[in-house]
């Protein structure tokens, strides 16, 4: 219970847990520990795989990191001798330098190593052991995150031409206050500035849900509470200025009538404003009571002053385009959960959403019955049914212009026992963080006019080969849905973001101890 709740405060720390498979190499067997994508901010520049090769001595292992380009050509590799229980958590490439973040799970310490674009090591920076509580939270986040998803909440983010931005969580040793931290490193890992939890802040626990970042700003939701197990949250939209290394502003998301829980947003450089999108409730309602009135779009200027607000109610506005009732339920029951919001280069605003609804969990109910109500099992009696993928398009005045729905099959999720008691929009936040939704990731074209959304498809027959959906929005403004079949029956597979117009696919075959990697062209 405690660990699960703590998850809310480490939203930015979800590492991509990878395969833990063994592959054959030169007649010996080596262990693939992790893999991931090298992004230079918006675009995929390559991939990496991290292996444990063998033991170097009593205290150390030999590790190898293979680097692939954006077409999955293996182009380089480096070997390092590091302590046992070492793992590569994340890697990033900012066009000028690579940064690898390692974790020593025994010493609870971290190691950051940077290389220049040609592979010359710039710096190996060992970070001292972290607080036990901090480590537990991070470990919990790594275990809870779904391994099949490439989570968009990476902790290390590239800032092209400048360095790397680390979005994490820190515990202030004096006040024991847990809070969001932001640290900027140059390519040679000099800490340029850091924003740490503020000792004066009133709440003891604080979590941050990043929604957007670029080379100038980081925007997200600061959520705070006093009791670790409490459900009484306070939250603000918070923007940090990366160039200045300080908080730009924190803005309330409440007005006289309504409260908004934002789930997506972006910085509109043309109009010098921050735009957020989310569901809104009456002001007097507590966060997460589930009574959503509709969808709101809010704009703030660069100082945090409100510029525009648009409330679109389910009954008066949205029902013209989608069939919803007064509680935000879609015709056959369910809600619309916004996963991501962004603006295309030609000024159109889109929100990627999923239709979902609460339902009884057969497995959870069975467990409760078997234990005659005494079970404190891992599964809740409450489950979630995921339905259509929806793309909401908004006009420049923020009014909703179009809603497009795409069938991706229905999938039932059994929630962890602790989560079932939460209101639906809090459950939705958790699910989004853990990658429980079918939405995987967004890729945008280099000119910023097109985008593609990767999501999971649920087959009607479980015996059918698995499928991955990829919806391409073409520069002509049309949607082209792709259903990509994973044909060769791999033991495990992962889909990864790729260069524009492609999808990265990694497949593992346990019998042959083989991993295949490819980028597959999308049809549009």
């Amino acid at each position, binding site marked *: 219970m405690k660990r699960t709740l703590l998850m809310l405060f480490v939203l930015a720390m979800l590492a991509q847990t990878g395969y833990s498979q063994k592959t054959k*190499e*030169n*007649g*010996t067997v*080596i262990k693939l520990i992790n893999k991931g994508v090298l992004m230079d901010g918006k675009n995929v*520049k*390559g991939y990496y795989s991290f292996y444990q*090769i*063998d*033991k*170097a*001595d009593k205290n150390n292992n*030999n590790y190898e990191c293979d*680097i692939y*380009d*954006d*077409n*999955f*050509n*293996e*182009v*380089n590799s480096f070997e390092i001798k590091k302590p046992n229980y070492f793992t590569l958590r994340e890697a990033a490439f900012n066009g000028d330098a*690579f940064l690898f973040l390692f974790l020593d799970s025994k010493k609870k310490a971290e190691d950051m190593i940077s*290389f220049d*674009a*040609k*592979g010359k090591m710039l710096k190996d920076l060992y970070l001292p052991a972290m607080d036990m509580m901090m480590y537990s939270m991070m470990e919990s986040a790594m275990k809870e995150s779904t391994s099949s998803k490439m989570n968009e909440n990476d902790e290390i983010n590239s800032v092209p031409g400048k360095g790397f931005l680390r979005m994490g969580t820190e515990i202030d040793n004096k006040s024991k206050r847990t809070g969001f931290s932001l640290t900027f490193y140059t390519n040679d890992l000099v800490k340029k500035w850091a924003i740490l939890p503020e000792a004066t802040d009133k709440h003891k626990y604080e979590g941050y849900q990043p929604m957007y970042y670029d080379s100038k700003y980081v925007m997200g939701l600061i959520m705070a509470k006093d009791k670790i197990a409490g459900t009484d949250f306070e939250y603000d939209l918070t923007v940090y200025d990366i160039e200045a290394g300080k908080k730009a502003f924190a803005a309330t998301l409440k007005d006289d009538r309504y409260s908004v829980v934002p789930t997506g947003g972006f910085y509109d450089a043309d109009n010098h404003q921050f735009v957020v999108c989310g569901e809104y409730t009456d002001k007097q309602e507590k966060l997460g009571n589930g009574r959503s009135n509709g969808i709101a779009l809010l704009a703030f200027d660069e100082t945090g002053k409100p510029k525009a607000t648009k409330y679109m109610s389910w009954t008066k506005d949205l029902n013209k385009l989608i069939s919803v009732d007064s509680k935000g339920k879609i015709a056959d029951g369910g809600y619309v959960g916004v996963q991501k919001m962004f603006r295309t280069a030609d000024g159109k605003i889109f929100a990627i959403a999923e239709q979902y609804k609460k339902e009884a969990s057969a497995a959870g109910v069975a467990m409760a019955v078997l234990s005659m109500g005494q079970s404190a099992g891992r599964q809740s009696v409450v489950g979630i049914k995921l339905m259509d993928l929806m793309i909401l398009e908004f006009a420049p005045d923020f009014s909703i212009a179009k809603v497009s729905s795409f069938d991706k099959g229905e999938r039932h999720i059994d929630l962890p026992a602790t989560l079932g008691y939460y209101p639906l929009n809090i459950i939705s936040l958790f699910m989004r963080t853990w990658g429980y939704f079918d939405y995987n990731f967004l890729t945008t074209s280099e000119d910023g006019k097109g985008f593609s959304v990767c999501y999971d498809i649920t087959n009607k027959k479980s015996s059918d080969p698995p499928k991955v959906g990829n919806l391409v929005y*073409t520069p002509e403004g049309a949607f082209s849905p*792709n259903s*990509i*079949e994973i*044909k060769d029956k791999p033991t495990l597979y992962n889909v990864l973001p790729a*260069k524009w*117009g492609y999808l990265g696919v990694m497949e593992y075959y346990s019998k042959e101890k083989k991993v295949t990697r*490819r*980028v*597959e*062209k*999308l*049809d*549009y």
Partner: protein
Amino acid sequence: MALCVSAKAQTGYSYKENYTPFAFADTSYKTEVLKHVKERYVFLIDSLSKKSRDKKKLYETIFSDRYDYIKSEFDDNEFTWDDSLSLYLRGILNKLIAANPEISGKKYLLTFRSSVPNAASTGDGIILFNLGLLNRLRNEGEVAFVLGHELAHDKYDHVLQSLVKYVQTVTDRDYKEKFEAAATSEYNAHHKLIQFMNGMLFSFNRHSRDHESEADSIGALWMIKAGYNPEYAISALQLLDSVDREKYADTINYNQIFSGNGYAFNNNWLQGTEFMQWYKSKEELTGENNDTVKTHPDCKKRIAGIRLLLLKQTATATGGNTSLENNINLRADFEIVQHFYDDGLYGASLYHSLQLIQVFPENAYLKAMIEKNLYFLYRSIKDHDFSAHTDAPSPYFSKNYNRFLFFINNIRSSELAALATNFCKKNGGQSNDPQLEYGNILCLSLSPDKTSVETLVSDYTHKHPGTKESKYLNEKLLTTKNKN
């Protein structure tokens, strides 16, 4: 380069208007070769000395695997033997055998439909000559040297010697103990094992390099006896040294090939993103320049070796400067196009077709291949298995090939359909060539206006009943045309 090839093409077999690829009808030679291989392996097993009897099982496994490999290559149509190209090579082989009585026993020559510039002796009297080498050689003398070299490997049992050395090594108690010790080391097991294997490889490959030098010398002497000027041994090795350079170095003129009829090729498709700077050279990645893994000595060393040999020779010969009969090396170029297509590698087949159509712009076979490859690349995007049918750009490919790969990797399926349709309208026209007709229908089926497709399929089926092409058109096009 292109003009030079074009001028050559005017003589002998004409590739100007059309080309007919090899057929795979006669199986008697295949049966004979496989029978020969089986009998040879039985003979070798029976000939094992008492001392080697304990290794019988290992030899049997190796021979069985090798037999299966040769059979599977036959079954997959990777070898040809009764075509004009193989018959021509066999003629030169027989000339070498006739002039050198010490080359005894039945020899089999197979053309290996591989684009890799190589030739090989399997050690069983079988010589494999790759299309990718034949298309680079310029005259009969160079072909004679390559064949002489492989015959020398065969005559002096170099393959068998390497095999015996391998079996002796891996069954040796000392080897086993060292291998076991490295593999089960508590620390640095992977590194120790690689170090151990590299040591073994070095020993094997030094042996192999000695064999290569010996085969060069003997091959050169045999070609002299057959009347070929030994300078062609040197020119063949010089060519091998630069074989990584593409034969058709001219940049493909995509605008000339695809634009017209109001349609304009988009030059942006040819632009690629910069490759990652942090990459190892191809040699570093594959270890090609490392003495441990090199099976052949440097070509420059091999040339020096032959020059030294020639200094000691009193006999000389002047033959072999005749161009390859019927521009047989060009035939190899066309067969490479066909081979990639047959293997479903539509990207590579299209690339080689585009290179050749610059030389033979009116060749109906090439037009048909371009149409068919464009169509099947389009289908592979629809089926989401594009990566199985073409390469992706790579820092290890040539500039020209990457430029082509950028094109087919950048172009969208809808754009590819328009490009294919226009190419068909511009080049296909009303053709009586069955393959071009087939390509036309495939490409027209990608057009938004599909009204004529059903009639065209019906006409084609009527004209060419029972062919695999008419079967495909009826099965796939008539049922899927509305989905495009």
